[in-house]
Structure formats: C-alpha cells, structure tokens
C-alpha cells in the first residue's frame, strides 16, 4: 500500500534550490566545512609530500643495504696526550673478511677507505674526499655514468691508478668529458681520470655513503699508495690516525635478511670492538621508522582537521535547526498533504548533505590550491593523493548526515496541526 518513492535526484534538485534561495546564508554555513576539508586535504598533501621525500632519500641508500661507518672516538677517550697524538679506531680488514665469510646472507660488500687529500687538475686544485673502494661500490651506490666508465675488477686486481670523479667534483676541477684519459694529481700522485658519475645530489636529511664531491680510486691502490696511517696538523700539534676501513656497505640477499644480518654483524663487531668505534645504519629500519612517524603525523593532523570539521558540522546543524523552525509551516503543509515522517527526514537530510558536500567540494579546491602555494613559497614537497580527496568528500557527506539527522528528526517529529498553526 506504500506509495512509490520520490526519486532522489528530484529531492536533491529541490534541496539545491532551497539552498540557493539563501545564497549568503548557505555560503556562510558551509565555511566551516570548506576550511575543515581544505585543511584535511592540504595537511595530508604536506604529510604525504614529506614522507615520500623521506622514503625517496631512504630508498637511495638501498633497502637491502646496511651501512657500517667507523666512528672516531671523542677526544677524552683517546689515549695519550702531548704534541703527537695517535688515534686508532674503526673497522678492520679482518672485519670485512669475517663479514664476507661468516654471513651467508651477504650478497655483496663494498669496503671504503676515505681520506681527504688535495686533488689537482692542471692549474685547479682543491681538497676532496678520496674514496678507495671495490667495483661493488658502484653496484651498491648506483649513480648514472655521465662519461667514461666506473672502476672494474681489473683496476682492483692490478691496482691501477684509475680515478672516477663525480659530476660536481669534475665541475669544480674544470674537468669535462674531454678530461677523460688525462692525468690528475691526488696528493701529488698521478691518476688517470676514467669516468665521471652523477653526484649524490639532494640536500636530504639522510646521509648517503657518497658525497657531492668525491673521487673514487681502486681499494688496492688506495692501500698501497696512502696506507692506513694519516697525519693531520691540528692546533695542538700533529694527530696521527690509524684507520683501516672507514665504511662498509653490506648488501643482504633478501629483504627479510636485512635486519637479522644487521643484528648478527652488530653482535660480531661488539666482541671485536668492545670500545665501539663503529656505527651500523639500516635504511630499512629508517624506512620503517619514517612510516611510523608518518602515521603518527597523519593522526595528529587528522585530529586537528577533525576539530575544524566538527565545528563546521555544528555550524551546519545550527543553521538547519533555524531552517526547520523557519519552515515549520512548510513542514505542516507537506505533512497535511500526506508526506510521511521519513520523507520529511529525507528532505532535510538531503539539504544538509548538499550543503556539506558543496562545502566539501569547495574545500577540496582550496585543499588543492594550498599545497601549490606551500610548495612555491616554502619549497616543501606536497603530494595530493586521490584517496585523500575521496576521504575528504566522504567525510563531508558524513558530517552532513551526522549533523543533519537531529534537525531533520526534529522537523519530522512536529505535530502537523501545530506546525500548520505556526506563524
């Protein structure tokens, strides 16, 4: 016996018309939702941008990699005083061998000697980080080759005097593709420039094993030519440092191996280096941490945005309650004609949802615009994801339903006779 349902589209159109009737009021009503949704979208975009940037930086380190650095002990820990100080610390060649042989999960390993030396090309000279390493280095720290080639197994075996420059380093030395094959002086020793690779780049918070301005030479050559002992002039006199390896990049076979491997190496090194002098960095763990941080960040941002949406919702409810009072007679008329309570509820609910969804749409526009400004002005990376838009629109519809229900129920509960008498 029930009547056919009124199609939703007609109800929506009617709702839109009623709201257009009070343009200014409707606009003011939805401001809260506009800013609420706008800030949800904008904040999620900033959060997403920040985390993607962090992920990008961490991925650069390689998710399968562990990075072990030698750490110089603090001055107090250094034995002996006087004018000539001798410091001995860090990773040993023995450690490298033990890691290679003791852990089957190790796929590749690139040891590195890192020494600061003066480098000369023609008349230009500058101090650079000289990195002695094996060909695996270029597999584990992947940088595109700009010109020439990287170091090979042959260089390593024969201990050639080959040198690879980074792009930035080459630029500073006024070197270019034509420089390939030319001679370069590293601490007065002649090397041949065999290639130029892209620089690490990026001023990220994550420290990559390579730097913008590096020069790479074979490990065997570095050991033979520069040895393990370096002398440095300090204010107090001379400081001599004995370091065998400054860093190691260890690649695990499987992603699942990364953390057990880190733990295993840590345990091993703790025994052989009871005084420390090394540090293990696990990009995967940093990645996990970054993801956890992002989650927390989003929760905090979400709560703030939630509060503005709540305020927006209350604003809408307030106006809808006023609207119900104002239109009491209309409700009475509709009821007298035969509208059921449920249809009155629908009518007001649809009006509220139209309001809040309009606010949501404008808010999304605002939320797309703000990140552009933030990127322009503050240089922060921002990423607007599709799901953040869907989420915000969903939330604005939800706000409309939640805050529209009470006014709509009030409207439907009105006694038709009383409503008709209402002035």
């Amino acid at each position: 016996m029930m009547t056919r349902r009124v199609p939703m589209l007609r109800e929506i159109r009617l709702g839109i018309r009623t709201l257009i009737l009070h343009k200014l009021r409707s606009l003011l009503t939805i401001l809260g939702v506009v800013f609420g949704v706008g800030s949800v979208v904008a904040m999620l975009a900033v959060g997403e941008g920040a985390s993607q940037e962090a992920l990008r930086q961490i991925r650069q380190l390689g998710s399968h990699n562990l990075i072990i650095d030698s750490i110089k002990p603090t001055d107090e820990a250094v034995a002996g005083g006087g004018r000539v100080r001798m410091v001995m610390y860090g990773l040993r060649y023995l450690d490298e061998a033990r890691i290679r042989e003791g852990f089957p999960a190790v796929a590749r390993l690139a040891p590195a000697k890192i020494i600061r030396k003066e480098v000369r090309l023609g008349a230009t000279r500058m101090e650079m980080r000289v990195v002695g390493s094996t060909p695996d280095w270029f597999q584990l720290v992947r940088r595109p080759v700009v010109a020439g080639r990287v170091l090979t197994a042959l260089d390593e075996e024969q201990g050639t005097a080959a040198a690879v420059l980074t792009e930035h380093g080459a630029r500073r030395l006024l070197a270019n593709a034509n420089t390939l094959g030319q001679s370069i002086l590293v601490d007065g020793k002649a090397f041949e420039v065999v290639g130029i690779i892209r620089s690490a780049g990026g001023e990220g918070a994550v420290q990559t094993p390579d730097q913008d301005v590096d020069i790479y030479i074979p490990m065997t050559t570095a050991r033979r030519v520069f040895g393990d002992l370096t002398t440095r002039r300090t204010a107090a006199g001379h400081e001599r440092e004995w370091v065998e390896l400054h860093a190691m990049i260890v690649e695990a076979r499987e992603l699942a191996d990364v953390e057990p491997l880190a733990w295993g190496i840590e345990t091993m090194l703790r025994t052989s280096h009871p005084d420390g002098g090394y540090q293990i960095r696990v990009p995967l763990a940093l990645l996990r941490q970054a993801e956890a941080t992002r989650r927390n960040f989003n929760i905090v941002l979400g709560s703030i945005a939630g509060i503005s949406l709540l305020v927006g919702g209350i604003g809408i409810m307030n106006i809808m309650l006023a609207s119900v009072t104002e239109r009491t007679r209309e409700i009475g008329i509709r009821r007298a004609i035969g509208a059921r309570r449920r249809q009155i509820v629908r009518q007001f609910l649809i009006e509220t949802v139209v309001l809040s969804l309009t606010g949501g749409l404008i808010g999304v526009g605002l939320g797309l615009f703000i990140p552009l400004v933030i990127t322009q002005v503050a240089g922060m990376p921002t990423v607007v994801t599709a799901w953040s838009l869907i989420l915000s629109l969903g939330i604005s519809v939800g706000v409309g339903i939640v805050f529209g229900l009470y006014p709509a129920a009030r409207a439907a509960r009105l006694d038709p006779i009383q409503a008709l008498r209402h002035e």
Partner: protein
Amino acid sequence: MTRASPVEDPVIELHAVRKIYRMGTEEVRALDGVSLQFGTGEFWAVMGPSGSGKSTLLNLLGCLDVPTAGRYLVHGEDVSGLDDDALSHLRLRRLGFIFQSFHLIPQLSVRENIELPLYYLGWDPAHSAERAVELAGLVGLESRVNHRPAELSGGQQQRVAIARALANDPEILLADEPTGNLDTATGEQIMRLLGDLHGQGKTILMVTHEPEIASFASHQLHLRDGRIERIEDPS
C-alpha cells in the same frame, strides 16, 4: 442529535467521538461525543461559535489527529487505530485540504505547489506538470503557473490551494474557513468553485461561521461546546 434518516453508503462515520485536551489539571472537551454519518457527494458546512470544536472536528476528519475516544470510520474502515504512516498515506490518497490562510509553500511556483501531492505520490515529473497545468486552468490560473504565491492575490492563492487539494483526485475535500481571509466578492468566487466541485460529485466538509458562506452547502452541522447542536439535512 443525529440525522433524520441513516445514510446508504457513508464516506465517513463518527461514533461517540471525543477529543479531550488536558492542560495540567484542566480538561478541555473540544469534542464531547459526536456521532454522525457523512454521505458521498454531500457538501457540509460545519458551523458554531468560536471554540465550539469546528477545527478540532475537521482535523480529526482530515486524519491529522486521532480521537481520544470513539470510533472513526472511512468507508467502513476504522481509522482510529492507524499509525502515523498509515494516516499520512490515507491523507495522500483520499483527502484534500484547503486552509484559511492558503498555506502555499513560498519558494515553490504555482505549478510546483499544485504538483506537491503528486510528488509524494511518486508521479513522474512530466505527467505531474501536465496535470498541474490542467488544474491551474480549472481554477482559472493557467497564465500564472510560473509565478510565486507571493505574486498572487489572496483569492488567486486560495484557488491555487484548491487546485492543489484536487491534484490527487481526493474523495473528500476538507476546508477550514476557506473564505476567512478573503473579501466577500472573492469569497463568493471561491464558494462558486467549491459549489461546482460539489456539483461534480465531490464530498466537501467545510468549516465556516458565516451563514452566507454556509448557504452554498447542502448540509449544515452546528456545534456548541463540542457537541452537535443542530443538523440541517435537506432530505
């Protein structure tokens, strides 16, 4: 007091209907035991002094309210026990209302006001628009279908209200002082319109306290203090 002779096929039957309003400890017997039959095609004028219960009776007959006691039958079906949804449905299908202050919805056009019952009946837009224009023509307002109620005179607004009341082709038209807000000449126009509808066989129940207006009706019911005082039944 009842009718001289029982009605063959009553549209509405009231049996000892009471409507009591309680205001704190005080009790207002708006209707105090009304029993009456309304026949198909009759045009009733409900009369009586202010506060005698005319509007209360009409609201009950219009299924906008339920009696405190007694039985109320429409075509033999007891309505007193129906819930709100069922009463709404009854109003939508069988009843048409005309009010003293017209009660048009201001933001809707004349056509849309007339369409309102059809909207709730679920008619498709094209058909209901067609019917609304037709009804506007019936009350002489075909040229005003796109106007807002505020742009019409009182008499024109009441004619729109009549067109709206007719949209669902109701069995019973209920009118509470339909000419109360109109001048005499306009009031007579409206009454002629109702008279025509009566002539076409509509059952009409109308509240008024003006004898000239009541004279358009075929039957008169006089109330006093919630009771039937007198019935004028031509048969």
